[in-house]
């Protein structure tokens, strides 16, 4: 998979709209402002992709949201453990007192953010997309990201990463990563809808 600068720009803009929508949803949920980093879009070899997200042996709490419909993809949110605690605190849940409840709450946040993201994406591209129930895990970043990439990586050694970060402005530092990983057909489909795939891209 090789993408032109124009295609990457389009995907980056799509990630921007998607994560902007997700930030708005989160701000509404928490009642506080949420900042958004400029998303990055890159096509990377599998070996480089994990490290582009973070240190492979760092512990993270992750929420994965499989997306089905006209394209298949996975939305992945990653939180540093202390930021996961902080976010749960915003919702009035003490992480250490009730980890199961906390993970469920983070899953729900993932659900809301992921749905906001793919709704924006679907509207932009005119596609019907459906999120599946969120799954949570706390483990090494490498294990989590690699497993998500593996599920999208069957046909190609290169993978598309759309990466953004959301930051809460209140109550100290609390930010998390937001990853959108379409399978390869998904990339072609999205770019096709934007008129940027195949002969149309020339």
């Amino acid at each position, binding site marked *: 998979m090789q993408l032109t600068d124009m295609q990457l720009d389009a995907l980056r803009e799509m990630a921007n709209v998607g994560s902007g929508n997700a930030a708005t949803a989160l701000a509404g949920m928490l009642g506080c402002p949420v900042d958004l980093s400029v998303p990055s879009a890159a096509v990377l*070899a*599998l*070996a*480089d*992709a*994990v*490290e582009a997200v973070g240190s*492979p*042996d760092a*512990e993270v709490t992750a929420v*994965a949201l*499989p997306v*089905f419909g006209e394209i*298949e993809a*996975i939305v992945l949110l990653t939180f540093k453990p202390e930021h996961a605690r902080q976010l749960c605190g915003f919702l009035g849940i003490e992480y250490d007192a009730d980890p199961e409840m906390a993970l469920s709450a983070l899953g729900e946040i993932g659900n809301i953010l992921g749905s906001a993201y793919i709704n924006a994406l679907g509207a932009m591209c005119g596609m019907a997309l459906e999120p*599946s129930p969120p*799954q949570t*895990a*706390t*483990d*090494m*970043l*490498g*294990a*989590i*990201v*690699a*497993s*998500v*990439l*593996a*599920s999208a*990586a*069957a*046909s*190609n*050694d290169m993978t598309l990463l759309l990466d953004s970060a959301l930051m809460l402005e209140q109550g100290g530092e609390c930010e998390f990563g937001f990853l959108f990983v379409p399978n390869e057909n998904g990339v072609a489909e999205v770019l096709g809808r934007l008129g940027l795939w195949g002969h149309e891209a020339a």
Partner: protein
Amino acid sequence: MVRMAEFAASQHPGDVLVSLGLGSCIGVALLEDSHRVAALAHVVLPNSGDAPAVDNAAKFADTAVPLLVNEVIRLGVARSRIWAVMVGGAQMFALGGATLDIGRRNDASVKRALDSARIPVRATVTGGTVGRTVRVYVGQGRVTCKEAGGPELDVITSERMGLARAA
């Protein structure tokens, strides 16, 4: 460092081959009785036949195992002396659909490939729902596994195998 879909083989004592954070991926380590040579592949997917093109043999279980065996033989080891250790193959998320339990399929596919290459598997730490880091200590016949937040534990050592440590 052996990252996703990469492999390495070494005959330098003191080298440590590492795959950090294996989830559904499998670290396949090949060692041999004299502990001179060791190799490690970071397998991502079970079957190269599922992909329209194989651009990287180390990515798939069925192509990575022969590749790795040939590397070890190329470094002067007889096939009959090679043995394997497997780490990884967990299910990090119950994602369902086409992504159904890649870890378990990787596990089965690596075992099958080792079997058809006539390489015995001496130890495995696979399955479950936890990520793992594998380290292969070249020249020592030692493989370790570390889970998130846990200690580095021996999967296999030359002592435990009752084998003489290489000089």
